[in-house]
């Protein structure tokens, strides 16, 4: 019968089609609008009604068989075509992708964020204060009266007889005490100004961070515990702390606190000048006079305060030799801090 012949020829043709394109052409010839199957369907009309169902079924079987062969052959051809394409593929994967956007915080900002986060995790709140301060907040309220000699040490930029650029972040102690009332725990990072000549370790504009903790029965051991925690978070759990007696008008007793050297961890190296210790900042118990100036009763409340230089910490942390590099804002300097060494 015709059926077997058609199927055989179709199979042969499908098997011989060299590619999916030719294969498709074969399919169109048999299964397309004007294909063999369609013409067979037309012949159906000429048959007697009794014969039609059987013939119709045959056509259908033929159609399905061709389609099946077509699909199988297509799968095989596609597979080899893709393998062939893949084997011929060329894309130099050594090429870089588009340049990353980049972007980085200034190293001083990074240090501020790092140190702030250590204290905010402890429960301290971050606050800020004005850069233009009054004599009262910058000096008098901090137990530095007009004839106090420590004003000699704080070479101050004045704007007029009353206003000045804050010489430390300590005025934020007074402003916070006034606004918030104890108990409180705050940190206040920010810019400060002193009439220092510019050199490799001095800048008239630099950054500090102030910390203040006020509660009942606060002792030096709380202060030492807090700063020890801070240094361990900053430097790793082997970091040690040392207090040395010192003087600040707004704390009593006062101390300077040192960290075991960032580099040699206490053995002695050029960074710590062989001492094994690095000076970090000043601290102490809040002077009763400071509490009184903020209308807080020193018989009821005590506290501790501490400060540290952000520029200095950044110099130490990154091994930067000269503070002036911070304020030149050169791209090849700033780009190095994309690495976000801290986070």
């Amino acid at each position, binding site marked *: 019968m015709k059926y077997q012949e058609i199927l055989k020829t179709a199979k042969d043709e499908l098997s011989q089609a060299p590619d999916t394109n030719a294969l498709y052409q074969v399919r169109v010839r048999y299964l397309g609008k004007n294909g063999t199957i369609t013409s067979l369907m037309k012949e159906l009309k000429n048959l007697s009604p009794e014969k039609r169902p059987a013939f119709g079924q045959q056509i259908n079987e033929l159609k399905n068989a061709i389609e099946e062969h077509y699909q199988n052959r297509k799968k095989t051809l596609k597979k080899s075509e893709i393998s062939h394409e893949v084997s011929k593929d060329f894309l130099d994967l050594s090429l870089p992708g588009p340049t990353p956007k980049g972007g980085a915080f200034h190293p001083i900002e990074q240090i501020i964020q790092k140190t702030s986060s250590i204290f905010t995790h402890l429960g301290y709140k971050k606050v800020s204060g004005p850069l233009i301060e009054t004599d009262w907040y910058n000096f008098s309220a901090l137990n530095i009266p007009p004839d106090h000699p420590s004003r*000699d040490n704080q070479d101050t930029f004045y704007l007029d007889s009353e206003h000045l650029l804050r010489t430390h972040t300590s005025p934020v102690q007074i402003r916070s005490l006034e606004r918030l009332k104890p108990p409180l725990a705050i940190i206040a990072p920010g810019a400060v100004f002193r*009439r220092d000549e510019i050199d490799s370790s001095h800048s*008239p504009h630099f950054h500090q961070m102030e910390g203040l903790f006020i509660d009942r029965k606060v*002792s030096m051991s709380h202060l030492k*515990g807090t700063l020890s925690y801070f240094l361990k978070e900053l430097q790793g759990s082997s970091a040690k702390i040392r207090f040395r007696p010192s003087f600040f008008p707004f704390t009593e007793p006062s101390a300077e606190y040192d960290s075991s050297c960032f580099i040699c961890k206490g053995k002695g190296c050029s960074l710590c000048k062989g001492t094994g210790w690095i000076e970090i900042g000043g601290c102490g118990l809040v002077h009763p006079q400071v509490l009184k100036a903020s209308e807080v009763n020193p018989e009821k409340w005590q506290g501790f305060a501490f400060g540290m230089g952000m520029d200095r910490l950044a110099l130490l942390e990154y091994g930067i030799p000269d503070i002036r590099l911070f304020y030149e804002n050169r791209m090849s300097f700033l780009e190095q801090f994309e690495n976000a060494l801290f986070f």
Partner: protein
Amino acid sequence: MLYSFNWLNEFISLSDLQPQDLAQLLNERGLEVEALSSEKLDHVVIGQITKIYPHPNADKLQICHVKKDKDQAPLSIVCGAKNPKTGDKVVLCLEGAVLPGNFKIQERKIRGELSQGILASKKELGISSEDDGGIFILPTSAPIGSRLDEYLKTNDTILDVFIPPNRVDLMSHIGLARELSSLLDKPFRFPFEPYHHKSNTSNLGIPKGQMKYSKSPKLPFVPYKNSFNVKVYETDICPYYSGQMMKDVQIGPSPYWLKKRLELLGVNSVNNIVDITTWILLEWGQPLHAFDLDTLEGGIHVKKAKSKDQMLALNEDQLTFRGDELVIRDDKKNLALAGVIGGKSSAISDKTKNIFIESAVFAPYDVRRTARRLGLNTASSFQFSRGVFPHTSMLALQRACSLIQQVAGGSLQGSPYEEGSFSFAQKSITINQEQLNERLGYEVPLNEFTDWMKKMNSKVTKRFSNIKVTPPYYRKDVNIKEDLIEEWARLKGYDFVPKELPVFAPQKSLNNKELNFLERIKHTVKEQGYYQAINYSFVDHTLHSEFLGEKPVADIPLGPPIFLTNPITQDLNSLRQSLLPGLFQNLLFNMRHGEDFGRLFEQGISFFKTGNRFEEKQYLSFMVWGQKKDIWNSNPRPTLFDLKSSIDNLLTLIQAPDWTWTDFEGSFPFLHTKRRLLLKIQGQTVGFIGAINPMLSDQNKIRGDISMGELNLSLLLNIPKTEFKFQKPSLLPSVKRDISLLIPNEQNVEEILNFMKSHAPAEFRQISLVDYYEGVQKGFRSVSFRFIIQGSDKTLSEKQISSLQQPMVKALLKKYPVQIR
């Protein structure tokens, strides 16, 4: 402050301590030693000449055999000087010695004869500035083999100690020695025998048992009667005044020991009298002033200056008084500005024969104010500003006279003058065990506490659990119990303080909106590829205002500049009113160093003044230059569009309500007049961006595509944010439709886009620009827009989409001179 180890050693025996040990002790007791330097002259010893004979090959030279050790063979030294004789004690400089002026001594042959060093002259040793033509011959008593510096006592170690401003009592060698006497529990050696009955060595505040005295020769004394009078009119500012006349002194250069010690402490020698006043300042912390007695007309008056009165100061400054300065006058003229500087007319000169030495106390505040106002920071004004104790003024005066007699001869003329008084009274402080423990965080041993207080010369009484401490008069820094706690902590050391994290009491909520906002802004900008810059808050006003011009666009007024009254230099003389000039300097610096790509931002304060009120505003500024080339992006865009999109992005991320970029008028000399945009939100100007003015580039010899911009964050902070509303994503498929328009150059594209957005039906979810190019037709740009279309409840047919699009396009063509391509 600088201290000489040897000098301290004169008052308290330090022979069992190395300078390093002393430094460590001071550091541990809160007196930070900032530097330690030793003054030594190695390989320079005392020798004796055993034989002298002529150099065989040189007429003017001779060879000396010099013994530096009893048992060893003498050394052979070639010498050109004529003065040495056999048996002389001489200064032998051996191989390895380095004399002043970096003169290195080596063994060498001179005209064929070995010289194992040199015999030094006074000039070569720096002892004299003039060459006396011969070598230095020492007294016969000089010990052979000893180091010369030990023999002359010039080997010394200088300690630079940071003295806290409240420890005025330590600002002298005697003061520090007194402290060391307490710390080391060693007797204090009083350096001379006071000659006047009014002076009392107990005025030093050291208990009798701790004091030793050294005998010294009595001074020649001439009885004297004269109408010369001292009168203090301002006893508040001058609570104590003393003085002594001396006659027939011989002004001249100072002896070596005096000169050398002052030099080691950083002071240049002037003449013997002035040098002694300096010596006393360093020894006692008492500034002295010496007047030429013969220039005085009448008595001495301590009173306020006459307004507009003048005085030529020692440093040749012609001073004009305001009237509130304290001066020392005679009957006719001003002699000195009290505590600050002397006058030229009464100064010690080469011809001076008779002198009057003043040893007084002037109030710290007044001296500081006057010195600061006149810019006269002298050693004397510094000491008075910190404080001077009248208790020892008379002792210091007598010590001065005794030393002057030693170096310049002369005799005392009458008794010392003295006016004023002082008190030893000091308030007592009561403290108890509980207070000590509570502040320090550990159990303080009370006996040790009282022992230390006594050692520090305080009086201590104990009643039940209370301890009453009365500090010595010179400890003005110990007033309240916290001071006692600090004193204990300092003496005991802080290593005993345990470490303990405090338990936190709950705090009030502190929603710091501004800080959170600024942090968010900084992070957002950084994430878009910008690098944070930090610049000084002060600027050069001239440059700053030249750069900014008036910079007044409606909502960004500059206001009057804010000057510093005391800038370091003129290039840092006012507060910035914009962060752009600083960033521009950064740009120039970068370009000079070949950085042809930059994305800088700065977030900081700009300063303004309205009336008497200062205002600090938070600004965010950008400096953008160059494009990073890479292989994927062959068509670089103007940097201004980078900046614009960064700010658009920022505004989106902080949920700013609708904003617009508009052209503007106004004098921004740093911006390109055709390439600048103002950023407005709800009608308020919050910032601007623009390309650099080509004139500015030209002036500064820079090239490249540079843009900048600035936002006022203080304004932005207060603009209400758009509220967040969640929308459920549609499940229906979306369709893309593009339309290309020819738009004339005069017509801005944003307006067309905005028109489409406002006229498009709701089904047009997004409208964006997808293609833009020039050069299709002159005067026109070809711009393609893309619509993303999505039905709200059913899939849209092709027909429906066309009918939705049609009215919008018709309206657009009607309103704008654009054509469909």
